[in-house]
């Protein structure tokens, strides 16, 4: 203490004031109770300034939450400070350093000259609360009482601040809790509002929505459902399946099954079914979906579902599908293979025909790179180049027109195709449709046609026939090489009307007339003309004929003709006629063998009589006495038999003498009798009952007796052959002669043989035609030649009963006398009742 002397009264007053101040200070905590640290911090300097003679008070309070401390500076009102309090605080911190304990007790006076004494007091044991700095210009500062007071104030402040801090913490916690509660309350309210919103949304969304309890009972059904179906909430909840009454009857069973399966399995369901729309009483397709709503443990709480009217969608989908189906069908039934690709060549369409043509199935090629599948490898580069060129320039020389190229099948075989590629702009992308036709067959057909044309040309040029054709107006327009070679003319010489120069001058005019007439009428052309033959420079007989080729209206399109050389044939025919005559003679010679037996018989009979009679005669004459009467009788019989033998020989000589048609008057009755006589042996042996009906007064005919007899013999022979196997009926034979019309005489031979069946009777007269197992089939042919050379007619008829009738008819001899001999013919060998007139 060592200051100036102080008056005791003053001392007392000062002490009293000190005590008062202490009391005030002691009351401070009560004043501060409930306050916060900043309140305390702000009242603390005021209290110190009012109690002590201080120039400044600095309070620094550490904030337990924030790093920056609270600083308060108070300056005594009496002091004139040139600076602001926060500048003082700054100055203090700079001059005094961060450690309060090391602050010097004197610092410069921030308010004027000289220094100022400062005293720091810690608040709290370790200044963890803060510090108080008191400063005064008085040199005696701090006095003892001032230190005491400051210490007490500092303690009190530390306590108060500590309490205030505790209290503040409490308040802060309470506040925080309150705020949290308020926030939570607000959140809950918002959530409720949201839920409300959602619920009303669920109720009003334009889709029928519902929840179903795990047992399948409808739980919540929204308004849209009721509006749509016309059902009421009460109705829906009356039965688990009540809602199903809205289903189309046809869908009900299936829908019910799917519904319950989905509910019981817990998997929910998706199904389409028709619902009755109450508004217009129509059934419309709905898509119904339900999913299980599960709790935390996986237990099903509800099924949540919707029913969406998809009728319009479905309708348009069906329309689309139908349109697509139609397009697909059109493409699939197209005759061409249709392939579409995008701009990179990826296949997007591949129709049925493409499957057939290329051997790849739709599923195999979709998405594949088209050139790899159908373009032969050597063409792929060119294809890619062309494609790029088109995509870059829009120029595609092979596009939009039919081209012929080569494609490759799955098997690797290449084949010709007709191809048309059409580019299409789809959006910004190019796409290509290719229409491809397999022309293998067409190519083959074309080739065949070419070959056939070639073959035809070769045929017309190489066949050994002469061919020509002419235009409808008769002008020759084609002659084949054969014809040119034959005639030695050139085509240009014949073409048109030059053809007549091929013909013999005597025949040309007539042929030309016929040709003109045929061209005019369309009748077939046929002439026999002498045609020039180049190789031996002669004219040879040819038949030239032509037929018109007509169109459907009968108009002549063309004449096609041939020239046939008949020259040799004509010669051959004449030769044939000679041969036939020779053959006729040969036939007679062949008949000789058969006749020999009967000749021998006919001759041996009288010879036998002659010899026997002569022997008897000799014996009678040699007897003693000679039997003259007997001998005379035997000689008479000998003569008779000798005549008989002579007759036979005469006839045989006539029959076998070869001579040209000897025209004489012939009595057919007589001729027939002789033939019968010659055949009597056979007639007898075959047990044939022969009947003759020879007409009285039959006119004579003009002809060769032997030849006519040969015909009769042939008839007779055939008749006997036809009856040789007949056992079940009499072997009857009728020979009849009669007058025929046109001054002809007819002879018929009717048998009861096997006949000639269904054979054409005319064929019987063809040479080498025979129905017999033996024989040459030449007899009737020769007979016909004979009768025809007699200007007569020969024919055969089947009988009404069994057998056949052969007839010939020849002209009568105009000069011939009527045969009046009737039956007074010379005796013939036809005895023993074989031949009898009725």
């Amino acid at each position, binding site marked *: 203490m060592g200051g100036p002397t102080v008056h005791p009264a003053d001392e007392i007053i000062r002490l009293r004031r000190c005590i008062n101040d202490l009391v005030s200070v002691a009351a401070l905590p009560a004043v501060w109770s409930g306050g916060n640290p900043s309140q305390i911090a702000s009242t603390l300097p005021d209290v110190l300034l009012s109690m002590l003679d201080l120039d400044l008070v600095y309070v620094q309070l550490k904030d337990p939450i924030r790093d920056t401390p609270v600083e308060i500076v108070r300056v005594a009102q009496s002091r004139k400070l040139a600076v602001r309090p926060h500048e003082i605080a700054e100055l203090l911190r700079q001059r005094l350093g961060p450690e309060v304990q090391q602050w010097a007790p004197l610092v410069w006076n921030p308010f004027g000259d000289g220094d100022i004494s400062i005293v720091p007091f810690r608040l709290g044991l370790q200044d963890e609360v803060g510090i108080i700095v008191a400063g005064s210009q008085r040199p005696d500062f701090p006095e003892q009482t001032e230190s005491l007071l400051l210490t007490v104030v500092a303690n009190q402040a530390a306590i108060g601040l500590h309490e205030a801090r505790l209290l503040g913490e409490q308040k802060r916690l309470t506040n925080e809790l309150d705020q949290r509660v308020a926030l939570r309350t607000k959140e809950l309210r918002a959530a409720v509002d949201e839920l409300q919103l959602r619920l009303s949304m669920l109720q009003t969304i334009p889709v029928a929505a519902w929840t179903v309890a795990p047992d399948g009972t409808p739980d919540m059904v929204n308004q849209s459902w009721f509006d749509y179906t016309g059902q009421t909430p009460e109705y829906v909840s009356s039965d688990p399946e009540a809602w199903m009454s809205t289903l189309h009857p046809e869908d009900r069973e299936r829908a019910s099954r799917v519904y319950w399966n989905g509910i019981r399995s817990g998997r929910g369901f998706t199904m389409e079914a028709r619902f009755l729309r109450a508004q217009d009483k129509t059934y419309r397709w709905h898509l119904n979906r339900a999913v299980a709503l599960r709790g935390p443990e996986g237990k099903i709480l509800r099924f949540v579902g919707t029913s969406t009217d998809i009728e319009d969608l479905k309708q348009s989908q069906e329309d689309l599908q139908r349109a697509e189906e139609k397009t697909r069908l059109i493409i699939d039934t197209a005759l061409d293979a249709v392939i579409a690709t995008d701009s990179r060549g990826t296949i997007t369409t591949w129709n049925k025909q493409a499957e057939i043509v290329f051997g790849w199935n739709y599923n195999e090629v979709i998405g594949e790179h088209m050139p790899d599948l159908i373009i032969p490898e050597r063409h792929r580069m060119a294809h890619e180049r062309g494609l790029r060129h088109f995509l870059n320039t829009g120029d595609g020389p092979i596009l939009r027109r039919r081209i012929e190229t080569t494609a490759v099948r799955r098997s690797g075989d290449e084949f010709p195709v007709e191809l048309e590629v059409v580019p299409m702009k789809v959006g910004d992308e190019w796409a290509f449709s290719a229409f491809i036709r397999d022309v293998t067959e067409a190519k083959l057909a074309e080739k065949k046609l070419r070959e056939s044309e070639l073959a035809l040309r070769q045929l017309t040029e190489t066949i050994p026939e002469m061919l020509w054709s002419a235009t409808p107006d008769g002008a020759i327009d084609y002659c084949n090489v054969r014809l040119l070679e034959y005639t030695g003319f050139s085509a240009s010489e014949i073409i048109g009307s030059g053809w007549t120069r091929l013909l013999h001058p005597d025949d040309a005019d007539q042929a030309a007339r016929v040709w003109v007439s045929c061209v005019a009428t369309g009748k077939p052309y046929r002439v026999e003309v002498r045609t020039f033959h180049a190789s031996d420079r002669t004219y040879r007989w040819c038949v030239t004929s032509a037929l018109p080729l007509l169109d459907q209206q009968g108009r002549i399109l063309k004449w096609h003709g041939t020239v046939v050389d008949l020259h040799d044939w004509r010669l051959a025919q004449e030769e044939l006629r000679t041969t036939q005559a020779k053959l006729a003679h040969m036939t007679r010679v062949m008949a000789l063998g058969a006749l020999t037996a009967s000749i021998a018989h006919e001759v041996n009979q009288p010879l036998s009589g002659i010899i026997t009679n002569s022997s008897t005669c000799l014996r009678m004459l040699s007897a003693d006495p000679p039997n003259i009467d007997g001998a005379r009788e035997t000689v008479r019989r000998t003569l008779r038999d000798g005549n008989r033998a002579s007759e036979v020989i005469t006839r045989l000589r006539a029959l076998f003498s070869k001579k040209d048609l000897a025209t004489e008057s012939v009595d057919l009755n007589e001729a027939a009798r002789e033939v019968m006589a010659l055949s009597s*042996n056979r007639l007898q042996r075959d047990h044939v009952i022969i009947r003759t009906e020879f007409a009285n007064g039959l006119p004579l005919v003009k002809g060769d007796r032997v030849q006519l007899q040969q015909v009769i013999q042939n008839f007779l022979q055939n008749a006997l052959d036809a009856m040789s196997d007949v056992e079940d009926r009499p072997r009857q034979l009728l020979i009849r002669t009669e007058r025929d019309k046109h001054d002809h005489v007819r002879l018929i031979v009717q048998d009861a043989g096997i006949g000639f069946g269904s054979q054409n009777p005319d064929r019987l007269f063809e040479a080498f035609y025979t129905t017999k197992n033996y024989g040459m089939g030449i007899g009737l042919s020769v007979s016909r030649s004979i009768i025809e050379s007699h200007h007569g007619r020969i024919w055969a008829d089947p009988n009404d009963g069994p057998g056949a009738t052969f007839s010939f008819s020849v002209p009568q001899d105009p000069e011939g006398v009527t045969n009046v001999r009737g039956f007074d013919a010379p005796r013939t060998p036809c005895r023993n009742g074989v031949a009898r007139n009725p």
Partner: protein
Amino acid sequence: MVERSLVSVVDDDESVRESLPDLLREFGYEAKAFSSAEEFLASEYIDQTKCLILDIAMRGMSGPDLQRELRRLRHQIPIVFITAHADESTRPRLLEHGAVECLSKPFSDAALLNALNSAFHVS
């Protein structure tokens, strides 16, 4: 008067029927002529006939037919066939079947006499 053996001639040829019996009588036989086999069978001369001169080819029953019929009736008559059909195969066959001889017309009186001698076993 010596009883003469009967030789019957069966032939459908009239000249044979007229000439042959006279010659047979000249040979010393009794002779009868028949125009067919049927006529001979129907006659009363079968049993008396000691030799038969028989034509082969006749209308109706033929010579061989008659031969078979006589054998069936147990008539042992020697037969000399005569025929106008000169067929070389005919004769051996007929001889094989028991004929005495087969003569082709025309035949000589000597040939006929030889045949008759054979039939009557005259050496």
